[in-house]
């Protein structure tokens, strides 16, 4: 498609012909106030907030429904356009309750931002004259609706119609009394909580995050959801209150057009809870907490004892770095290593959009690194094993064998348990169901510092380099040359 050149204020930009003016501005980092437009949804043009002045046109035009043309000259900051925007924002705020102190959206609210930019600072309407509507209505699926804060941009309505295909949010009423309401129980077909991100104001908020923390305190890491093989790109939002531990408060989808677009499923979004709670934080031997040095000496004695048959199992939940470290570790001690099996396949979880049946985030990585995944060889080896080194696997073992477990959460049936950092506390690479290599990094800090699996195994074999990223970068390319240039 051919490109056209246009001028926006003092910037000269080139963009593909036919693109929407607002998208060109957003892609180039230019500020343009808007409520109803969203990249993932079709232009609607109902909020009228994105008014710009286009040379040759009599009246202000909306940027969200205007395709760009060659030689177009656009102005966004002239006094008359500022006056237009101020007037539109005044109408949006006509019946707004201005309850920012108790609104979870405060800090990431479009109304707040635009008010600072083009706000009418002396209201024409007294607070007592405002129209009141329903507040804190629990719609279900962790979504809370506040009709007074709504600007009726209908992003949520369009999302449930066009994307989630559930069509259970509608606009009812007329004029100033129009409100968003749910038809029956709001489910969003398992994608309901995306409307919380889509809502530019505090009308739709999450009951899971409700009053948990103020958003400006949260630190955000770029990570990958480990809930299924799709590997949706996410933000990990975490914060440690004074004297408290670093806690994950919410997961939000991070834009990646190749994988998840702007969205993620509700199951993935709630999955952060298991990273906060019920974690394995110190080594255990026979159910009792003990020191790392004691556990290490026991483990080394077992590894050096050639009379015992040892077998290792590894799950596809680990990053490529961790899988490679397990492989190197087992090769060094000549322990047969087997990979995951059917346990994490859950056909009922799959749907037509993002969710896939494979609940493990890195099965493709496991296979790429050449780890044996055949169930027959594994079961035969397990039946003869006296000690099983279990790297986060969940296979049931015969009662004969002793389980040495490396994992993030306690295991009820393990002789020895070694705590390992979860994905929110380390960084690594995963390969998703479409064979896309993705990087994640997390910086959640536990009060007890947890090592990632590759660093822990490095300590066991006294290899300092195992804790470093460049070593694994080189080793992974060595093990799987097809990863060259994809890490």
């Amino acid at each position, binding site marked *: 498609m051919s490109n056209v050149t246009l001028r926006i204020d003092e910037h000269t930009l080139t963009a593909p012909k036919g693109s929407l003016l607002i998208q060109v501005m957003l892609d180039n980092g230019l500020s343009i106030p808007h409520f109803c437009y969203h990249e993932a949804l079709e232009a609607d043009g109902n909020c009228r907030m994105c008014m710009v002045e286009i040379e040759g046109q009599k009246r202000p035009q909306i940027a969200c429904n205007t395709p760009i043309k060659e030689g177009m000259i656009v102005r966004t900051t002239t006094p008359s356009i500022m006056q237009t925007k101020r007037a539109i924002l005044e109408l949006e705020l006509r019946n707004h*309750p201005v*309850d*920012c*102190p*108790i609104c979870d959206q*405060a800090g990431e609210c479009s109304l707040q931002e635009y008010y600072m930019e083009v706000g009418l600072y002396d209201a024409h309407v007294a*607070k007592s004259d405002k129209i009141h509507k329903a*507040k*804190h209505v629990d719609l279900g699926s962790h979504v809370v609706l506040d009709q007074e804060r709504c600007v009726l941009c209908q992003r949520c309505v369009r999302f449930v119609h066009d994307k989630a295909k559930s069509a259970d949010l509608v606009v009812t009423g007329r004029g100033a009394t129009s409100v968003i309401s749910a038809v029956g129980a709001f489910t969003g077909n398992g994608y309901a909580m995306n409307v919380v991100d889509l809502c530019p104001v505090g009308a739709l908020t999450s009951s899971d995050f*409700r*009053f*948990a923390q*103020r958003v*400006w*305190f949260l630190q955000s890491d770029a990570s990958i959801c480990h809930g299924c093989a799709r590997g949706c790109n996410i933000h990990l939002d975490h914060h440690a*209150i*004074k*004297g408290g531990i670093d806690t994950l408060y919410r997961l939000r989808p991070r834009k990646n057009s190749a994988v998840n677009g702007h969205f993620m499923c509700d199951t993935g979004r709630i999955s952060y809870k298991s990273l906060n709670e019920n974690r394995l934080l110190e080594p255990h031997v026979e159910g009792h907490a003990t020191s790392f040095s004691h556990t290490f000496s026991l483990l080394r004695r077992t590894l050096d004892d050639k009379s015992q048959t040892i077998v290792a199992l590894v799950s596809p939940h680990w990053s490529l770095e961790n899988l490679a470290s397990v492989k190197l570790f087992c090769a060094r001690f000549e322990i047969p290593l087997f990979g995951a099996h059917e346990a994490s396949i859950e056909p009922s979880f799959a749907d037509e959009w993002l969710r896939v049946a494979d609940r493990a985030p890195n099965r493709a990585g496991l296979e790429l690194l050449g780890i044996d995944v055949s169930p027959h060889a594994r079961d035969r080896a397990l039946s003869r094993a006296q000690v099983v080194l279990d790297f986060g696997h969940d296979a049931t073992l015969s009662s004969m064998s002793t389980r040495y477990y490396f994992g993030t959460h306690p295991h009820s049936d393990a002789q020895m348990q070694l705590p390992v950092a979860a994905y929110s506390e380390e960084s690594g690479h995963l390969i998703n169901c479409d064979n896309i290599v993705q990087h994640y990094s997390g910086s959640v800090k536990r009060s007890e510092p947890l090592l990632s699996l590759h660093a822990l195994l490095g300590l066991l074999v006294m290899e300092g380099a195992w804790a470093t990223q460049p070593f694994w970068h080189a080793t992974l390319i060595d093990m799987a040359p097809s990863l060259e240039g994809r890490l």
Partner: protein
Amino acid sequence: MSTHIVPRHGKSFKERWYLSALWVGFRTTFGHFWRNILNTNAIDVLEYPEVMPNDITARYRGHHRLTHRDDGSIACVACFMCATNCPAQCITIEAQARIDGIDEKEPRRFEIDLLECIFCGYCVEACPCDAIRMDTNIFSMVGNARSDFIRTKEQLLATQGAYAPTHSQAKGAHT
């Protein structure tokens, strides 16, 4: 990067020879010394704690308190403005949903560490609900342990203000 040369003053011999300025300083110090030692009854002294100061003004920033609404319930809505504005980060808040129907949000925990507080009053400035004030005129805080200086929500609510009105005066900041 440009530099701006500031002209240096005090180049005369009298100014560079600092003993003359020293002499002026000593004259003030010894002036007070002799005046007080010759007439000890005239020294301006407050016999604290038998005599309490009576010159604390309404602007004085003392111990904090949390105000009440007209119905006697807590005025604070746990918006975190005070904690955000606090330069000493001495305010710890945990919010919860309020279920009595008066408001939607309230603090479950509201603690001020007085050992960390610098009594700047920024929390009072930031509050949109007039829920926190420093108008108690309490200037003396004592305790036997560090933990005694962490004031809880209940203690802050029980602390009385020194002036009327004692209730939150916020109008329409929230409902």
